[in-house]
């Protein structure tokens, strides 16, 4: 009897507490909305949004619905996160490995890089790049060409656009190459396990990846042209580049700040992972006659990755969430477009903020679920 009381009383109290809080809040919201004449509902999503977004991956104009504006914002968020994740991974791996270098200068430069970028608030870094560093760039008419065809100007970065013909055939070829590589790997693994023969899988994979798409150019009628950005005079003093793709300075500032900031955390994860593999493993692998490359590929990396991947995914998630800081420099991401402009126009605070939060929540939970599954898959299976 005593035990039952001990078990149930706290639970009932906790549930009651939560219910009371939620009840109190919804009741207040109800009365407040009644008083102000606001009704709750998601009907506004199909209404015409009548505001413009500066930068969008899909066709969008003011006559589209709020739902489409939401999609524009979401895609912009995903775009900036995706680019930043790639850059921060590359930088992070380089810096993390450099921190373990035997070279005093490299080791310390890497350490200072980490200490430097990690200890400055991300928002300040974004502001620094956007308001201070990128504003020092030349005007369009004075910009020098980088790599001959791209222009870094104060109005953004202009790069040539790719003009494809028969893109789908090219994509099919790429897909075929990937499938072929997977089959080849399976075959190679089987061969190694059964007969002990090794074939250079990496070499074959790379050549497959190059040759098949190349064939599509030669025989599939695929062609690739470039549309170069060209300087155009708008008025007496104002110039602009036309054609090609223009990346707005907001995007560049955001990508720079996010990837530099997150790369320090990725670097720490990488370092911890490599340090976490015991020295005995390396020595044992070398003593059974594996080459240094094989030691790295077959012994160190599989074990280090097991330590590196979970915290690194966490950092990717953080990066995605941090990309919402875009609102501070007016990059049209989910928060700015939807929780900013759309909220101002419709006044549907509760609905819009909940949709925004739920979107981020579902991104986080999805990635977390995938990571848990992956972790289960790679964790050491003890016999």
């Amino acid at each position, binding site marked *: 009897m005593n035990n039952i009381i001990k*078990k149930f009383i*706290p*639970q*009932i109290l*906790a*549930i009651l507490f*939560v219910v009371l809080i939620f009840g109190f*809040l*919804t009741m*207040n*919201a109800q*009365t*407040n*909305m009644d*008083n102000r004449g606001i009704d709750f509902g998601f009907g506004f999503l199909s209404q015409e949004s009548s505001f413009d977004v500066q930068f969008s991956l899909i066709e969008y104009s003011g006559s589209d619905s709020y739902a489409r504006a939401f999609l524009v914002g979401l895609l912009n968020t995903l775009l900036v996160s995706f680019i930043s994740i790639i850059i921060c991974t590359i930088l992070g791996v380089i810096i993390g490995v450099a921190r373990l*270098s*035997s*070279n*005093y*200068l*490299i080791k310390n*430069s890497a350490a200072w890089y980490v*200490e*430097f970028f*990690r*200890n*400055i*608030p*991300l*928002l*300040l*870094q974004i*502001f*620094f790049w956007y*308001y*201070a*560093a990128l*504003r*020092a760039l030349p005007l369009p008419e004075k910009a020098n060409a980088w790599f001959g065809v791209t222009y870094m100007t104060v109005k953004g970065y202009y790069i040539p656009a790719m003009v494809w013909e028969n893109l789908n055939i090219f994509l099919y070829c790429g897909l075929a190459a990937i499938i072929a590589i997977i089959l080849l790997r399976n075959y190679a693994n089987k061969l190694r396990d059964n007969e002990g023969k090794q074939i250079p899988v990496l070499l074959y994979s790379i050549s497959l990846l190059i040759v098949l798409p190349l064939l599509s150019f030669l025989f599939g009628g695929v062609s690739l042209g470039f549309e170069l950005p060209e300087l155009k005079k708008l008025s007496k003093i104002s110039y602009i580049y036309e054609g090609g793709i223009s990346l707005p300075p907001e995007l560049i500032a955001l990508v720079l700040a996010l990837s530099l900031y997150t790369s320090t955390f990725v670097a720490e994860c990488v370092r911890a992972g490599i340090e976490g593999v015991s020295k005995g493993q390396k020595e044992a692998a070398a003593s059974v006659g594996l080459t240094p490359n094989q030691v790295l590929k077959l012994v160190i990396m599989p074990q280090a990755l097991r330590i590196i991947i979970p915290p690194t995914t966490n950092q990717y998630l953080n990066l995605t*969430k*941090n990309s*919402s*800081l875009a*609102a*501070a420099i007016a990059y049209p991401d989910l*928060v700015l477009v939807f*929780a900013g402009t759309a*909220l101002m126009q419709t006044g549907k*605070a*509760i609905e819009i*903020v909940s949709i*925004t*939060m739920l979107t*981020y*929540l579902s991104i*986080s*939970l999805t990635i977390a679920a995938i990571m848990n599954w992956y972790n289960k898959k790679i964790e050491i299976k003890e016999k």
Partner: protein
Amino acid sequence: MQTFNFLKPNRSNIKNYSIIGSFLVLVSLIDVISNAFLKINLTSFLPGSITTLFPLITGLIGLNMMRIDYSGNKTLDLLNKNINTNNFNALLTLLILFSIIKALPQSLSWMIFDATISGDSKDACTGTGACWTYIKVWFRRFMYGMYPNEFHWRINTAFILVIAFGFVGYFMKENLKKYLALYYVIIYPVIAYLVIYYLISGGSFGLQWVETGAWGGLSLTFIVSFFCLIFCFPLGMIFALGRRSSLPAIKYISICYIEFWRGVPLITVLFMSSVMFPMFLPEDFFMDKLVRVIIAITLFEAAYCAEVIRGGLQSLPRGQYDAAKSLGMGYWKMHIFVILPQALKLVIPGIANTFLALVKDTPLIFVVGLAELAGMLALAKTNPKWLGFAMEGYIFASIIFWIICYAMSKYSYNLEAKYKTER
């Protein structure tokens, strides 16, 4: 007669090698230094592309010649071991050295030699360097926001008092030490709140009322992070224990809480606190924006705190729980006297990281219209009298935040070392 073997150093010509090698490295360094500092190109007689590559090539040859195993010269051995183990390392070493040398004169002259600090208006800044006059003139605004100048002593006194009360725990008598946790969790926040309310807000004791809208600058950063710090830790502890609880209702409530806050970005939480939260309050109930923001950040960071503390709880061996139970301790006794003291010791680095993240997140309150340091910078930047000094402002703010965060992380290392016990 000494033969000079150009291909391979041997015992007899080590000296020649090391001397020629260091000479070449020296030449390459002198070339780069003179190029960067004095703007003299020593190798202008060479054709274009070779001129730029000259220091790199000579440096590489020099380092290659210097690379002698067990040369007998201690300095040389040390150098070789640390920066010159192979050609690739040597190349990276040279590249790093060169880029430091190249960047040094420009940044030094911008930051120090060509910079202006005298005067009190924009006109004083005529040089090509940084304009620190801007920082000097705006310094009080950056520190105290729009708080009236003549009352700045109130903020300073309040901070000194709060810090002084914080140190009380160190000087508590031995027999009072058991109430230490109680003091820090309940009494201290109340004292701090009263001090800040009566001194900074004012309104009584003959002090003029200053509304929170005027608060700002770095002092606001401190106020927000201080309150969030002291509130989020106990809250995080509760949810960490809740998540490990054997009672399903409590466990799932805690899990939902933690996963919800960890899944959303802080900026949406702040939006929620500023636009959505007022809808959820009773009609005639007014809550200050600053208080709402502090509550929002506290709830948000508590989830992260909880996860860190849970990590510590999980890493304790089962034996500790069993031993405590077998002594007849109940749930609370076991946790307060056995589990938490050990677990909290383990999570010091993690907690410190959470706190660091919190301090770094405080500039975000800028997006809901509270002008702390980043907000004041944005204000100053758009002031028509002071246009064009964004760079100086952000460098100044970055330096301040960097010092704060770096000091915090170093302190956490110390704390970790201090409380490290053999396990």
